[in-house]
């Protein structure tokens, strides 16, 4: 069957199996590797993409049911080749170690900040509780998000 979606701003129609997930469509069929596969059961948040602006675990979304909805992966944040200021904050604050959770962390954070632009530390932690990180202990990730919110890196 055919899955229709708008991927990072570009409309796509792709042949999929009825049981194929969005994660499988992105990685296996389209070769889009900025989406990572972690647990494959909706627990770890690694495969997060934005679906109509909301963070979802792409391993739990069926590709055939997309019906033209907008999917944004990390690559969709690119701005004329430069880093997004939130990405810059992650680099500067040591929020990246192995980097496997990073794409999901960034996308979840940005979707959250759309709804709540000036969160405190507690709210940031709560927003990111669905994204597991086994390296950093979260402190530096929350530091990076806080720095970005404070506009330390030229944001706003």
């Amino acid at each position, binding site marked *: 069957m055919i899955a229709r979606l708008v991927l990072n701003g570009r409309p796509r129609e*792709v042949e999929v199996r009825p049981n194929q997930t969005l994660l*499988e469509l992105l990685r*296996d*069929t*389209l*070769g*889009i*590797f*900025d*989406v*990572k*596969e972690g647990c494959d059961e909706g627990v770890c948040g690694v495969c997060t993409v934005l679906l109509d602006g909301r963070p979802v675990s792409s391993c739990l979304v069926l590709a055939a049911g997309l019906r033209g909805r907008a999917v944004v992966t*990390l*690559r969709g944040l*690119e701005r004329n080749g430069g*880093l997004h200021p939130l*990405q810059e904050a*992650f*680099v*500067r604050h*040591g929020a*990246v*170690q192995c*980097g*496997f959770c*990073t*794409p999901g962390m*960034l996308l979840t954070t940005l979707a959250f900040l759309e709804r709540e632009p000036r969160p405190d530390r507690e709210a940031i932690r709560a927003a990111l509780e669905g994204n597991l990180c086994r390296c950093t202990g979260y402190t530096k990730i929350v530091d990076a998000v806080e720095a970005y919110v404070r506009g330390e890196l030229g944001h706003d």
Partner: protein
Amino acid sequence: MTDAVATRDALRIVGQPVVRHDARDKVVAATAYAADWALPGMLHAAVLRSPYPSARIVRLETKRATATARPTRQRGSSGSKRNGLRRWPASLSS
């Protein structure tokens, strides 16, 4: 004491926050992890462990596994070759 501080401050690495050299690639997901590689003729393997602790393995039934897990290459629209099998039943070479 002040000498020690002056020495430390003059150091390039020790006592200074250092940006990880691999962080930039990772925030744009340009880093390729093991699961992101797809090479021509790549072999996939899965490990099957006994469901019974301390049991002796007397025989391995591989007929179904070898029948299912025959490599079938599939071409994604990106042109990357991937093994067409995604959820393998554990396969052991006999």
